[in-house]
């Protein structure tokens, strides 16, 4: 196993895991921001104000249609030119993924809120609950149950999409793998398959349990 030899040599494995940590920490930052903003955006989306709804709609359509890599290019290359600020790749990534994630999250919140049938509120009112109690005991628990599995799925999508940041020059797990392979190209040519295979499985090991959890919760709360 050439790949194993190369990985175990020097600090290669540690570097690879550091690269993975770059990917994960950037995704986590974007996910946290997206959830916080998304809850707000979701509220806005359920409001009756037409201007706000039209604006949200436009935002949502934009992130649904424009590929995330294009958005990354726009921010990373475009911002530098337009405002003369050189954003780092990392900052661009967090901006873009939050812009994308908050919109998607907002739509999930909207969907979850609107999926609660009206007679749920009515029957809660009929029990003599106050408005606050209706939200506390009836609406919010049901909304959260619908929301959490979908939000977790969104999180795995964001982690996977973070792999794109190597294309704007961030040194993350895939880039590190490339560097390791380049360094070893004279004495261990065939290591490439194994090392890219390892990166493949690293992503899988991170995302799979999360997907499984989402699936479980979805079944449990369906």
């Amino acid at each position, binding site marked *: 196993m050439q790949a194993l030899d190369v990985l175990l040599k020097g600090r290669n494995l540690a570097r690879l895991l550091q690269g993975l940590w770059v990917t994960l920490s950037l995704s986590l930052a974007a996910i946290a921001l997206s959830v916080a903003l998304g809850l707000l955006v979701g509220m806005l989306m359920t409001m009756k104000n037409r201007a706000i709804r039209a604006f949200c709609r436009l935002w949502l*359509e934009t992130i*649904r*249609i*424009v*590929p*995330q*890599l*294009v958005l990354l*290019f*726009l921010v990373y*290359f*475009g911002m*530098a*030119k*337009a405002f003369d600020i050189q954003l780092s790749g990392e900052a661009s990534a967090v901006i873009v993924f939050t812009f994308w994630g908050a919109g998607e999250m907002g739509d999930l919140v909207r969907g979850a809120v609107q999926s609660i049938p009206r007679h749920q509120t009515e029957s809660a009112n009929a029990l003599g609950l106050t408005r606050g109690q209706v939200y506390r005991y009836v609406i919010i628990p049901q909304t959260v149950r619908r929301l959490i599995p979908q939000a977790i799925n969104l999180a*795995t999508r964001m982690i*996977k*999409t*973070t*792999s*794109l940041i*190597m*294309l704007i020059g961030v040194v993350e797990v*895939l880039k590190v*793998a*490339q560097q390791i*392979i380049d360094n070893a190209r004279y004495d261990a*040519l*065939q*290591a*490439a*398959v*194994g*090392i*890219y*295979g390892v*990166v*493949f499985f690293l*992503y*899988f090991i991170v*995302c*799979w349990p999360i*997907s499984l959890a989402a699936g479980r919760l979805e079944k449990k709360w369906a």
Partner: protein
Amino acid sequence: MDWTFIQRFTPMYAEAALLTLRMGLTGIALSMAVGLLCCLAQHYRLPALRQIARAYIELARNTPLLVQLFFLYFGLPKVGVRLSSETCAVIGLTFLGGAYMAEAFRSGLEAVDKTQREAGECLGLTGLQNLRYVIFPQALATAVPAVCANVIFLTKETSVFSAVALADLMYVAKDLIGMYYKTDEALLMLVAAYLVLLLPISVVFSWLERRLRYAGFGRAA
């Protein structure tokens, strides 16, 4: 904004867009075929094939396309398997898309009531007739929104093809930025090209979904 520059390089973008479209369509068509096979293997509980399908779906859905492509394009040649950029792109997209399509079809099949199958059986239909006339049409109608979402998702995913040296839209844009430093123009044309590709698909799909919902046969009762 340098309009003569834009004019000069529009044909280049058009060509790249056509390439993206061709790769995307091929990959999506193959994804549907793979997805259908996986879905049937699971639905009919075919021994071994069913487990393989499940494992493949989990693998493909939990890893990024970019990593899959790197493995195909930069990894495999080192052990003697040499694939062209185009082949890598189509294989990668099919690997990813097949899993998503399988899930979409599966949810469609699962949404068809068990009693519908029984009703078909009680009319003396054979298994295949039942599948063709009773179960598939209903499953497909339920699966349409998910399939449409997948088509858009996969078309967007084609944007990473540039990483394996395919001269697609991203590749052209990056090239122009590097060569002429015309960032604004290059990016503008990039966004415009993707809008031209994806906006019509998106509009047609939401129309299709609305139509299906209104014709919505939904549940019988």
